[in-house]
């Protein structure tokens, strides 16, 4: 049973996000501290890119191997030096090429049938927004604390 801070007593509208949200936070923060330890202070841009990769990795690990998009993200991250294009050329003719733009945006979208694509999209968007909310929360806390 999640409850937000005492400043606002509105109940959590998505109680099912509870445990996975915490897992996401643990993974992301662990990755964040690793980035901080291993990236020299001079290369801020590089560190920004590493943080971004940590964000997608945490998202994908938390979603698990049951999702096609998370498998695609992890494949992409592990082979990022070699493989740039995500979508394979072969789309099944029964699925058609519906929603091409969406297929390019959702990891692994190229090889999916249309129904699977829509399901994966919904899950991807939920996880993405959870990740964004986590990162925004960290930025807010760190900003308000001040040096």
């Amino acid at each position, binding site marked *: 049973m999640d409850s*937000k*801070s005492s*400043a*606002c007593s*509105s*109940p959590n*509208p998505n109680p099912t996000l509870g445990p996975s949200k*915490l897992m996401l*936070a643990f993974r992301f*923060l662990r990755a*964040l*501290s690793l*980035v*901080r330890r291993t990236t020299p*202070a001079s290369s*801020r*841009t590089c*560190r*920004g*890119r590493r*943080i*971004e990769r940590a*964000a*997608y990795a945490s998202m994908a690990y938390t979603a698990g191997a049951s999702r096609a998009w998370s498998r695609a993200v992890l494949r992409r991250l592990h082979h990022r030096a070699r493989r740039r294009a995500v979508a394979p050329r072969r789309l099944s003719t029964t699925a058609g090429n519906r*929603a091409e*733009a*969406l297929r390019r*945006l*959702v990891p692994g979208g190229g090889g999916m049938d*249309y*129904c699977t694509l*829509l*399901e994966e*999209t*919904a899950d*991807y*968007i*939920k996880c*993405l*927004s959870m*990740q*964004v*909310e*986590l*990162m*925004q*929360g*960290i*930025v*807010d*806390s*760190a*900003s308000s*604390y001040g*040096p």
Partner: protein
Amino acid sequence: MSSRRSRSRQSSSGRITDQQIDDLMSKLQSLLHEARHGSHDRASAAKVLQDTCSYIRSLHREVDDLSERLSELLDAAGASSAQAAIIRSLLM
């Protein structure tokens, strides 16, 4: 009943509200239902797909933007204050 999270999301790339996400989810659900049961309402399906793509793009932009800001914050903050901020955001 308007349910608002205690923390609203603001970023330079525009604000995505929880209501918009919920809207999009129900639209995607109905789109999925249509796809499974064979009805083809092309016009609205195209619009939902377009909106979906816009949302994903803006979410990607937010991740990008927040990554940069986190990078700056890690730079500026001392070790202990950064960790304290992070633990606070977890508990809230």
